[in-house]
């Protein structure tokens, strides 16, 4: 075509994407589960020279990805991860998608089967604004990053930072790195993920691996 669609990255790459990109080794094989319109994949391809693949539920997202030259297939994180072979990627990434899956623990298991490492980011439902919203208004919290009302939100499995680390423990999963992010987008801490982080952290990013 005379006028191929040029990939125009948004001016500001989402903060959790920047932080995820920092965790990824250059030249590695990456699967982005729930890759949306491919911004993170494109970012990783450009800055980290990764061999990137994507899985995305929405037709629209997939079409944008493929038209932009990314290797992405249309599929569902809950049902389609089973087709990927063991250890076929260095990293299986799930950015702000965990809470939209039907069986988050099964998805996590799959991520750690497919990837040597899993990188998972999610909004912390125990963030103080969420707590305050629920406590004071008595309504399901809506914040800047959680701006869709309960009856329309794709987020069906919210969890808190503590819920997540408890699940990791239960699943015998090793937490290799953690980054807790403030609502401003600035990093709050990279060293702990205790009660303090659970109260003040708006978003969490974890790099996980299998213990055995």
């Amino acid at each position: 075509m005379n006028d191929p669609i040029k990939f125009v990255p948004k001016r500001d790459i989402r903060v959790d994407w920047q932080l995820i990109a920092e965790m990824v080794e250059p030249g590695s094989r990456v699967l982005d589960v729930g890759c949306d319109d491919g911004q993170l994949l494109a970012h990783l391809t450009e800055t980290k020279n990764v061999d990137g693949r994507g899985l995305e539920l929405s037709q629209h997202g997939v079409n944008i990805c493929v038209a932009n030259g990314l290797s992405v297939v249309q599929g569902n994180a809950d049902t389609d991860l089973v087709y990927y072979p063991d250890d076929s990627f260095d990293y299986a990434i799930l950015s702000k998608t965990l809470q939209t899956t039907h069986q988050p623990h099964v998805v996590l298991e799959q991520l750690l089967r497919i990837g040597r490492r899993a990188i998972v980011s999610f909004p912390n439902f125990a963030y103080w604004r969420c707590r305050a919203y629920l406590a004071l208004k008595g309504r399901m919290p809506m914040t800047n990053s959680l701006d869709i009302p309960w009856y329309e939100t794709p987020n069906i499995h919210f969890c808190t930072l503590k819920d997540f680390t408890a699940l990791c423990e239960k699943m015998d999963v090793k937490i290799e790195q953690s980054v807790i992010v403030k609502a401003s987008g600035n990093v709050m801490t990279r060293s702990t993920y205790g009660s303090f982080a659970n109260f003040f952290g708006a978003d969490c990013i974890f790099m996980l691996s299998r213990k055995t």
Partner: protein
Amino acid sequence: MSIKPPLSDNQTVILGKETPLKLDCGVTMEAINMAYCTYGELNADKTNAILVCHALTGDQFAASRQPVTGKNGWWEMMIGPGKVLDTDKYFIVCSNVLGGCMGTTGPSDIDPKTGKPYGLNFPIITIGDMVRAQAMLQDYLGIESWFSVIGGSMGGMQTLQWASAYPERVFSAIPIACAARHSAQNIAFHEVGRQAVMADPNWLGGDYYASDKKPTSGLAVARMAAHVTYLSEAALHRKFGRNLQDRENLTYGFDADFQVESYLRYQGINFVDRFDANSYLYITRAMDYFDLVEDHGGSLSKAYEKTKTRFCVVSFTSDWLFPTSENKDIVQALIAAAANVSFVEVETDKGHDAFLLDTPEMFKTIDGFLQSSAKSRGLIS
């Protein structure tokens, strides 16, 4: 940019004189004619060649005037300067399939053993045989590996077969609206078509070439039935509804009262002028026999083990002949084989035929895929 006419002369080459073509049925063909068209120019490294595989009733005239009908090529929307298959960048090759009737050896050609047209003495051919013959053409053209192999429907089957049988000779593959095995429903429709041809008294057991009458009514009915499967209920409704053809009222007879009837009759009548009835039998059979899953012990991913080929699978929402589910089977097998695969389901109400029509979403998808493949092959920086 100078505008080069995308036309190419139809060329025919005799292949298999030294190493004959061994068919799946066990028969060996000593020499076959291979008719093909090319568009654009082959680069010095011979790395920019794209093989376009045509569908059941297609031919090599993908982007040039069809000599019998005088109509434009069947994929002129895709092939040409500045188009998705850009003839300013790529060297496009499209050959008539083995068993066809536009110059490549098929049942209407002379059997050297008898001096008469083959008719039903033509050996049963498979998609694998078609691809084997195309590989001979690739050798003849001196192209080590295609930059891409692309095709819809039966062309998609050939594309899948190419990537499985000759992985090192296919850099990228774009199977569109196809399946790794022909479904029972599709075999059933083909059987209806074949029975219509064979029920025509002019078919004469396939030996009609010397007769003045050809099995045109049977072939037209076969085409009409098949044509319905290429469309969708929504497309038929949108195009024709229950509209009447050149009349105000029903005639209370069996004339083509409805526009849709008239349209189908037109499709049938036009088809018989450009297609050989026996070719129709042989090629539909080849599609029926196609089963890459069975060929690989029941596991399609084995067909693509360790493949380096990049894949882009495209399906259409309203295609009920090769539905998305069957295209997804291919995608899942490729994922299981750890292949580099993209998959897009294009939203359209045009049915299976969408791949031949103006479908911008498909154009964008294939364009994006080809551009990134061209980058990875070093064709563009």
